[in-house]
């Protein structure tokens, strides 16, 4: 089972076959999605009709509208980007504060609060969305019905989507940053004080640079999670639909290679972001 324990040849080859099958299973759906973004046919299915970039660049004059001329999808992409930006900002800021709170401060009830912090991870995403909808949208409805005050902020829309996503993404970014802070030797801060730094300067010159890789990692993760989230988002979205919801609506109408084109773009985008962060942290 391990390298030093002898294995039979049959076992080895079966194991290898299993590994290959596994990685084919992993790669196949993404591979076909990517490939059909370039098929010169109106449906993403065989037979292969030749290579085209129409699904990205066609301007609609020949009955095909490519992604970069599809206003609906482009708007949705922009909405998603805005949401992801705010979610990233809030989640990472919360993550930093929470990490310091749980790793560096001693106070009563810390264990209990830590469990509360983990709670959003064990609540299904749909429920997170629904509960926020019920609370805030319900509050807006009640205010409107009783006093005639319109609180559009809490109607389904971008604000609620950001709030819903922050609920669980903040937990993840807290875990990422806290894990890094746990490996920080508090003596380094004392050393900085000892060499003449004030506590604030010590934090910015010693602790923060140490946390930086995890902050970038948490930011990339938060951005991707927000961009890709569907379950929470779909419950809270208003008229300005983010990309995943827009894609879902399109998909129900029927699939076209434009969807493949968007999917490939998303994959490349995420891959680049992931590589960027990994490149930074390995340096």
């Amino acid at each position: 089972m391990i390298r030093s324990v002898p294995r039979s040849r049959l076992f080895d080859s079966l194991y290898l076959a299993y590994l290959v099958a596994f990685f084919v299973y992993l790669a196949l759906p993404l591979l076909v999605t990517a490939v059909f973004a370039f098929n010169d046919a109106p449906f993403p299915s065989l037979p292969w009709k030749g290579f085209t970039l129409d699904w990205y660049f066609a301007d609609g004059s020949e009955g095909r509208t490519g992604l970069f001329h599809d206003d609906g999808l482009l708007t949705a992409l922009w909405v998603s980007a805005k949401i992801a930006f705010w979610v990233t900002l809030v989640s990472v800021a919360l993550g930093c504060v929470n990490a310091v709170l749980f790793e560096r401060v001693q106070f009563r009830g810390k264990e209990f609060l830590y469990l509360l912090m983990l709670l959003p991870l064990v609540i299904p995403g749909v429920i997170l969305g629904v509960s926020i909808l019920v609370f805030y949208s319900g509050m807006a409805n009640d205010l409107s019905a009783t006093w005639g005050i319109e609180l559009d902020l809490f109607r389904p829309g971008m604000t609620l989507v950001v709030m819903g996503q922050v609920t669980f993404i903040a937990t993840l970014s807290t875990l990422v940053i806290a894990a890094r802070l746990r490996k920080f030797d508090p003596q380094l801060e004392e050393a900085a004080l000892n060499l003449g730094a004030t506590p604030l300067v010590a934090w910015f010159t010693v602790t923060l640079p140490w946390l930086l890789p995890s902050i970038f990692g948490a930011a990339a993760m938060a951005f991707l999670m927000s961009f890709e989230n569907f379950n929470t988002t779909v419950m809270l979205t208003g008229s300005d639909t983010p990309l995943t919801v827009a894609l879902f609506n399109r998909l129900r109408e029927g699939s076209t290679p434009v969807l493949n084109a968007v999917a490939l773009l998303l994959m490349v985008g995420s891959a680049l972001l992931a590589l960027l962060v990994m490149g930074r942290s390995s340096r």
Partner: protein
Amino acid sequence: MDSDLFCEGLVRRFGNNAAVDHVSLDVPAGTFFSILGPSGCGKTTLLRLLAGFDKPDQGDIHIRGQRMNDVPPNRRPVNMVFQHLALFPTMTVGDNIGYGLKRRKMPLAERRKRTARVLEQVGLPDLEHRNPQELSGGQRQRVALARCLVLEPTLLLLDEPLGALDLKLREQMKVELKHLQKQFGTTFVYITHDQSEAMVMSDQVAVMRDGRFDQVAPPEDLYREPATPFVAGFVGDNNRLSGELVSVRDDLAEIRLDDGVLVQGRVASDNLRTGHRAELYIRPESLVLSGEALSAGFSSMQAKVRTTLFDGANSRVEAENCGQPVYARLPQDGSAPRLSADSSIRLAWNPALARVFGADSP
């Protein structure tokens, strides 16, 4: 006042337990001062009080005559080499050393110059651009030292910085630290649990136990004239023989060991009372294997050989007297007889080299 560090009646309590219990010390400028004690004796707490990471419950800390109690750590003329060095992993060696200078708002060019100079002084020229992680243990040690020395502190605190090194490197660094201290002329306060480190490097050693200083003295005095049984047992190897005090004459105390033999040693405490229990400490190298002929004035006792421990110049024989182990040095110049297990030997010593304490000494 020409003392760099002067403390009086320092107390630091954690709950009911006093980690530092009325400690006073006076360290003259340019001294290598060590605080030696077993782990948990309060030496790290004392060091943290001096650095300002902790506040004393009672007592005062003066550095060059200035009261430091309410001065925050970043404003004290004190720098510290941490136990695990605490080099900043996110900075290069040069930035580590320049860190303190930068906090003093020193211009970049001057900072570079001083960094290069101090690196030269600690024997690591041109290493500014390396990362601390890429250095060897000994090199990191020197960078940590340079990071403090470049600030020209009044007082340098060292918290067992050699603990993480392997034995050979540690021997080397001991000597080197002593030289660096002389070269820079900075006052060092060094804490350690390793008596050899304290003995080799220090001008003065304070032996600390349970939050108090048992004795403060130069290493030689500590070794030859331990003030308490604890110091006698903690600093260097020592044999302890217990018996009943028979008489005290002039400077010599006579005690009767449990097998009835009368032996002598110098009086070392003032709580010796005839008829009470007393303890005699004699170092292994002071014990000689003797035949029937005994030098005048020497004391002697019989012991049964258990085994011999060959260790080059440190070779010893382990013997037994009244159930208590006794060690004696075996000279390797051919003068020692071959000893077989269970044979009986006679161990003799000059009473001037033995020290006798009352059994209830602190």
